[in-house]
């Protein structure tokens, strides 16, 4: 028997006298979402918690403990390093290297012109081609990108949003040309345009037509690509833009609900939509808060889909997600320390039950990662998978008074914020009025103040600093990419059947104007070797452009 009968007695009798003699390091302890943390958690914090209703079993509603029954005992998460730079040639080599190193899925980073619908030879692309990802101008680049990589044997995640329908069409045509049946290809497009207006910035069209393109891809995928996740609703960029964990949960859920509503309005059945939804979260520094966040996200989605949308298929209730460690936490100072940050964040993702994981490389606060630093990042995942034991039992932190309490707390706070957005009129309205953007900027600024006032320690930046002359090797992307892509484009334009190109583009214009699903017409354009920008310009003409951000 313990001496104290409850926490308040223990606090008075044991804790307070001890704190008086040995003061705590801080007056108050908080998570990154400014949730105050007690000295200790006990069964009292979980009073009234119905285990079966709120926690349950892995693979069963409400999926708090995980989407599958055996989790990593059956199959480990997919180790998926986000990569792509320069031209399709270089990126293809990097992918083959990663696959040889034991990576199990591909994740394509596109350069900004590709994401915003400009060819590499457009003046606006100057200096940007091949910088933050690979430059893809036409189907020929896409074929080069996956040369000697059978598309029925890998799953491919493509971080592409405003131009997602076009890049998806290119992937489809590349698969066809490899002789691979469409029903067998698996992967995902990010396709989350709402968060582009909120946080990431690669929007092209105004929100309404952009949502129309999203639901066109939904309809196309439910029909032809059953193994494809047609959206990755992303909290990642919201958090990286400065939000806290509660806002990440709430805004992501609000956006997901907006996509479901749009899909339903487009006439797609809820149980056709649900199973092809994917999510994308960050894994940040606060280990327990992050684990709680992942668990809360699963529970929230299960309730959204079952209770709000009346989905009947359990596959529709399950939130499956990709995780990336937090790029914004990486420091340029003492960059080797980032290896440790990433390891802790990756552990949180695994303890939180992620389906796939990208671990950031140590040099990403300086430039794109080198091959060696990517290897360390991948090895971090392999260490977790094969040496740490973290993957050997399902949801190992369940039942921790603290983690269960924090899961409840995050969920409750996220619902409150979610309801606020619903009152504004849902995500679209909240974006158009700048609500989410303002909230995120406020959080980002508060965090910066905490760092500068020393309330928040960043090792190597505001404490434990050294005078250093950085000698870390970084990856340089050759300026030659623009010239090479420009030459390829000129050559393509000479070779291709100009009449077929203009016929296909005219066909797209017609479908886009009529309001029919544009996907089949985009596939026609891609097959005729129309370029990304040519296809995009047709859509710009019909839909207009979003030139200004909303705030």
């Amino acid at each position, binding site marked *: 028997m313990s001496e104290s009968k409850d926490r308040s007695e223990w606090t008075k009798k044991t804790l307070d006298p001890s704190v008086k003699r040995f003061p705590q390091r801080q007056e108050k302890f908080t998570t990154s979402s400014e949730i105050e943390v007690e000295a200790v958690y006990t069964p009292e914090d979980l009073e009234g918690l119905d285990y079966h209703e709120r926690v349950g079993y892995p693979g069963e509603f409400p999926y708090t403990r995980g989407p599958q029954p055996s989790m990593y005992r059956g199959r480990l998460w997919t180790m998926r390093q986000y990569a792509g730079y320069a031209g399709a040639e270089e990126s293809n080599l990097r992918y083959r290297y990663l696959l040889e190193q034991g990576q199990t899925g591909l994740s394509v980073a596109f350069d*900004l*012109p590709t*994401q*915003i619908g*400009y060819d590499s030879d457009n003046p*606006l*692309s*100057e*200096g*940007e081609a091949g*910088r*933050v990802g690979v430059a893809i101008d036409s189907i020929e680049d896409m074929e080069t990108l996956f040369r000697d990589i059978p598309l029925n044997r890998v799953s491919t995640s493509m971080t592409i949003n405003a131009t997602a329908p076009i890049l998806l069409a290119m992937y489809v045509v590349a698969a066809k040309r490899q002789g691979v049946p469409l029903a067998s290809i698996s992967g995902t497009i990010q396709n989350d345009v709402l968060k*582009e207006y909120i946080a*990431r*910035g*690669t929007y092209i069209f105004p929100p309404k037509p952009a949502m129309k393109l999203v639901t066109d891809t939904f309809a196309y995928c439910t029909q032809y690509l059953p193994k494809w996740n047609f959206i990755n609703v992303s909290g990642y960029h919201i958090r*990286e*833009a*400065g939000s806290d964990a509660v806002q990440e949960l709430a805004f992501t859920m609000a956006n997901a609900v907006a996509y479901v509503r749009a899909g339903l309005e487009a006439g797609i059945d809820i149980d056709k939509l649900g199973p092809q939804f994917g999510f994308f979260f960050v894994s940040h520094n606060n280990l327990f808060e992050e684990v709680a966040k992942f668990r809360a996200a699963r529970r929230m989605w299960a309730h959204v889909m079952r209770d709000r949308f009346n989905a009947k298929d359990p596959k529709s209730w399950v939130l499956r997600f990709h995780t990336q460690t937090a790029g*914004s936490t*990486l*420091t*340029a*100072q003492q960059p080797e320390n980032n290896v440790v940050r990433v390891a802790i964040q990756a552990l949180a993702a695994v303890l939180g039950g992620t389906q796939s994981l990208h671990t950031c490389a140590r040099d990403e*606060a*300086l*430039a*794109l990662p080198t091959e060696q630093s990517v290897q360390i990042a991948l090895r971090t995942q392999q260490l977790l998978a094969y040496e740490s034991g973290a993957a050997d039992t399902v949801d190992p932190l369940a039942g921790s008074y603290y983690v269960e309490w924090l899961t409840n707390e995050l969920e409750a706070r996220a619902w409150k914020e979610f309801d606020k957005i619903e009152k504004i009129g849902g995500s679209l309205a909240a974006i158009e009025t700048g609500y989410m953007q303002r909230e995120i*900027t406020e959080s*980002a*600024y508060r965090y*910066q103040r905490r760092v*500068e006032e020393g309330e928040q320690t*960043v090792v190597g*930046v505001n404490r434990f600093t050294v005078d250093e002359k*950085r000698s870390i090797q*970084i990856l340089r*992307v050759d*300026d030659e990419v623009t010239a090479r892509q420009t030459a390829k484009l000129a050559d393509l334009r000479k070779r291709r059947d100009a009449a077929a190109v203009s016929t296909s583009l005219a066909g797209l214009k017609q479908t886009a104007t009529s309001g029919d699903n544009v996907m089949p017409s985009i596939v026609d354009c891609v097959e005729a070797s129309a370029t990304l920008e040519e296809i995009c310009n047709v859509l710009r003409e019909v839909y207009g452009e979003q030139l*200004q*951000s909303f705030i």
Partner: protein
Amino acid sequence: MVEDKKIRVLVAKPGLDGHDRGAKVVVRALRDAGMEVIYTGIRQTPQTIADAALQEDVDVIGLSSLSGAHMSLFSRVMEELNRRGLGDVVVIAGGIIPDEDHEELKSIGVRAVFGPGSSTQDVAKYIKTAVGAQG
């Protein structure tokens, strides 16, 4: 004499890069430090940035880039500024900019580079000194 006149700053994001957390935080911090700050928003061309600098009669321009395109973008901004006779505006930069590029940026007229982990108070202090020395 510049007493009482608030320092005017233009924070700008040239190119296609949408990472604007840093830019927005700097905007807030400089305002709190008593400056008049205009933020262009993302995806600006060198021409629009130089035009805005001229129209707004700014003392300082802060350029932010995290996409790796800083060398070509910043030098085009500098050209456009010079073309408009704004060669004496204090230009500073922030974002993901490798150390090796700092010298070259300085040679084209970028006065200081504030990389990841920089304190916004240092940015404000730098601006006050640089503008003070000029005024």
